[in-house]
């Protein structure tokens, strides 16, 4: 049980409850090997706990190749009240592989999974993206040392050379852990700038965070105070957080409606950047099992500030989840994405 009078243990318990980040690599002989489980300490027995690791070991991200995963950005698994956002990438390797056809320098498969409660799953997309990008940028050429360290730990006789490998790996692991700590803290405290606060999911998620003691008023107003132990200020009328949020949203979905007669989905989106947007591509896709199928692709040469555009997509029988993307034509960077679930839309209308 958490010691309520010990702020550090309370902070740790809250961190565990809000978000857990797993970094794993794939070993041909051992299977999915965890390198780090944040915020749990090194030496935690959780990685050997079959029940705890079940959604990680059976996560669909393992079954898709990097190319298959690419259009989806990340793969999600919902399990017992939590959503596990998974992302896979390749990195440098010096490990001797145990499968024919693989060489020492064949790249290592790294999987990053961030699990958050379903109540705040709306924040998971951006979080997994941030964590993966930072790992790739800062640890791409170091991850193989953590893998070497994990393998070395299994050696029965620890020679000075092996000890050196372990120490070096542990140091990198500590840096990685600190980086994830910083990203998650910063993300939940400062970076969430989702602006359509009137959406039910968003309100639900913010309420959840507020309930957990996170100062969600900081979403609009960055405050450099303690991350996890702030007062709840969500409904403080003296703050203008909602307005500030609205200004920060580059695009707002102002309306989504289902046209029953023609079986069409109407999505109205507003350019809220305050400037003209040039050369973007709009994609509407639907999800079936783990795969994505495109329904509509539309080039927008010019999108005026504050202008609302109406996108009409056919509704595919038995498909409930539709993804709406805005991508820059130039570098294919996704600048906006939203999942539209017809079931929740219908229940909201009723």
């Amino acid at each position: 049980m958490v010691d309520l009078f010990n702020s550090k243990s309370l902070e740790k318990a809250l961190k565990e409850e809000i978000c857990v980040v797993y970094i794993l690599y794939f070993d041909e002989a051992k299977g999915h090997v965890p390198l780090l489980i944040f915020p749990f300490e090194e030496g935690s027995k959780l990685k050997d706990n079959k029940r705890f690791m079940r959604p990680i070991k059976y996560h669909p991200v393992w079954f898709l190749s990097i190319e298959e995963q690419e259009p989806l950005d990340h793969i999600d698994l919902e399990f017992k009240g939590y959503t596990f956002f998974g992302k896979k990438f390749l990195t440098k390797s010096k490990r001797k592989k145990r499968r024919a056809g693989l060489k020492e320098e064949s790249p290592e498969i790294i999987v990053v999974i961030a699990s958050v409660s379903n109540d705040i799953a709306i924040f998971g997309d951006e979080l997994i993206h941030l964590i993966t990008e930072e790992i790739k940028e800062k640890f791409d050429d170091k991850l193989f040392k953590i893998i070497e360290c994990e393998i070395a730990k299994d050696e029965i006789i620890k020679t000075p050379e092996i000890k050196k490998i372990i120490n070096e790996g542990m140091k990198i692991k500590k840096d990685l852990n600190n980086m994830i700590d910083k990203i998650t803290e910063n993300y939940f405290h400062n970076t969430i700038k989702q602006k359509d606060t009137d959406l039910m999911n968003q309100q639900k998620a913010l309420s959840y965070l507020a309930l957990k003691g996170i100062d969600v008023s900081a979403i609009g107003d960055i405050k450099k105070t303690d991350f996890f132990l702030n007062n709840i200020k969500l409904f403080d009328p003296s703050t203008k957080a909602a307005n500030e949020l609205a200004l920060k949203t580059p695009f707002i979905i102002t309306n989504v409606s289902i046209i029953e007669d023609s079986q069409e989905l109407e999505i109205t989106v507003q350019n809220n950047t305050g400037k003209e947007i040039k050369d973007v591509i709009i994609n509407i896709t639907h999800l079936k099992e783990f795969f994505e199928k495109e329904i509509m692709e539309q080039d927008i040469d010019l999108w005026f500030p504050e202008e609302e555009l109406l996108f009409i997509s056919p509704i595919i029988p038995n498909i409930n989840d539709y993804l709406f993307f805005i991508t820059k034509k130039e570098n294919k960077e996704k600048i906006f994405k939203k999942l539209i679930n017809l079931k929740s839309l219908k229940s909201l209308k009723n």
Partner: protein
Amino acid sequence: MSDNLLKEDEIIIRNYRTSDYEATLEILKQLDKEFDIGFKEEQWKQSSGLRQFKPNLKRITLIAELKSTGEVVSMGMLEAVKNSLGQYVGYLDNWSTKKDYVGKGVGKILADRAIQILKSWGCTSVRINMGYNVSKKLIDVICKGQGFTPVFIVLEKKFDEK
């Protein structure tokens, strides 16, 4: 007559905004009264005139606004539809001007802009559906002024809604 004509710089041609809803509603009602275009008020929503994108279709509602007063005086919809041959054909629909501004050249300014837009979208041709009982004078004005030629006659059968 030419004294009555509005100059191009007296008019702003722009895309429809949701705030134009009431003004466009009034113009469309007026058009329906005159030509029975089958307009139903409950189907013309605030979002109906927004730039619209659908597989194989793009649509814009253009608005002509008086620069001096901000009054919406004319409107017209243009759409590009991909036909069965894979070509985009442009259509000018529901072209209408407020009664007080008919004959002042607003429609022509609006149509010129619409044709430019349809051309930029890669349309191979532009078509206008006109009322069967429309005056020959109006057909002549459009044909001579804008370079259109009468090509089709459209026959329509309305279904009994009951």
